[in-house]
């Protein structure tokens, strides 16, 4: 299995994401430069976190014009798995590959801390290894993670089961206090209608080893691997 990890100017979690794939789940990975257009080597693309283009204008607003984003749109259109983490999520919404937008945190401050996530849909390529309702402990690290969508979009997301994770308490309760950023309905991650493009604000790559505080992030990466292996074996 081979993952492509994107690098835009200002990306700063690419080494971590690369490391998590290589060391924590033992799969292959490459860095994909923002000018690259060839994604033919990859089974899945991870859009790594950071501050692409310094977060200037709006988070993700400039990165979405990079050549690699055209390639990613094509890759996704063909059913390829794409996961945007943090800034990756922001880029995917700017690019229109995921609905909604990420606004500044309601408290206006950057927030780096551990949070709990409730798995809302365990029937996706990204969460197949989780139990529905399972609570994961994974850190967030962002200034603009406050998910926004208009009421119609929000309804659709709910109806189609497109909400992957909500911020919750350690017991799995979705309360306003459990949200680190004021996100609508505590949304922490979503998936597109087709079920192959996902975005999330928390950083699973930071939670792949007990020494770093949690290994729950592995659920996501191994779910992706299992899904891809399953699919490969069907071909």
């Amino acid at each position, binding site marked *: 299995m081979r993952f492509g990890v994107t690098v835009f100017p200002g990306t700063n979690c690419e080494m971590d994401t690369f490391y998590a794939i290589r060391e924590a789940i033992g799969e292959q990975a490459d860095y994909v430069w923002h000018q690259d257009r060839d994604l033919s080597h990859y089974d899945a693309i991870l859009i790594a976190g950071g501050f692409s283009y310094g977060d200037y*204008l*709006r988070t993700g*607003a*400039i990165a979405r*014009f990079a050549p690699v984003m055209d390639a990613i749109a094509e890759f996704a259109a063909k059913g390829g798995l794409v996961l945007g983490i943090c800034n990756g999520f922001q880029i995917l*919404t*700017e690019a229109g590959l995921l*609905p*909604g*937008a990420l*606004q*500044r*945190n*309601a*408290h*206006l401050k950057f927030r780096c801390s551990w949070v709990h996530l409730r798995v809302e849909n365990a029937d996706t390529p990204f969460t197949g290894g989780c139990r529905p309702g399972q609570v994961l402990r994974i850190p967030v690290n962002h200034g603009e993670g*406050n998910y*926004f*969508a*208009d009421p119609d979009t929000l309804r659709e997301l709910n109806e189609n089961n497109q909400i992957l994770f909500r911020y919750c308490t350690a017991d799995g309760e979705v309360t306003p206090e459990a949200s680190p950023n*004021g996100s609508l309905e505590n949304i922490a991650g979503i998936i597109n209608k087709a079920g192959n493009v996902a975005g999330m604000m928390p950083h699973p790559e930071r939670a792949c080893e007990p020494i770093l505080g949690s290994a729950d992030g592995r659920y996501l990466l191994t779910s992706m691997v299992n899904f891809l292996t399953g699919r490969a074996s069907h071909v």
Partner: protein
Amino acid sequence: MRFQAEVIVSLKKGVLDPQGSAVEGAIKSLGYEGVGQVRFGKHITLVVEAGSREAAEALVADLCKRILSNPVMETFTFTVTEVA
């Protein structure tokens, strides 16, 4: 011809403005009365070269749509003025 463009990008109605609310709160806590509905947007200035005013306006409109604003939550207005 050179034009000075002034773009204003505002949050759509109905989109919460945390910064606006925070500043409104700060204003009130300083004892100012009768101040409300504080909302923050962006003010962007740029210089464009174009063959005519129409061309300049078309260019700026295009920039606003494609780059300077996000249609999910923002709207924009702009003016274009010729400069020497």
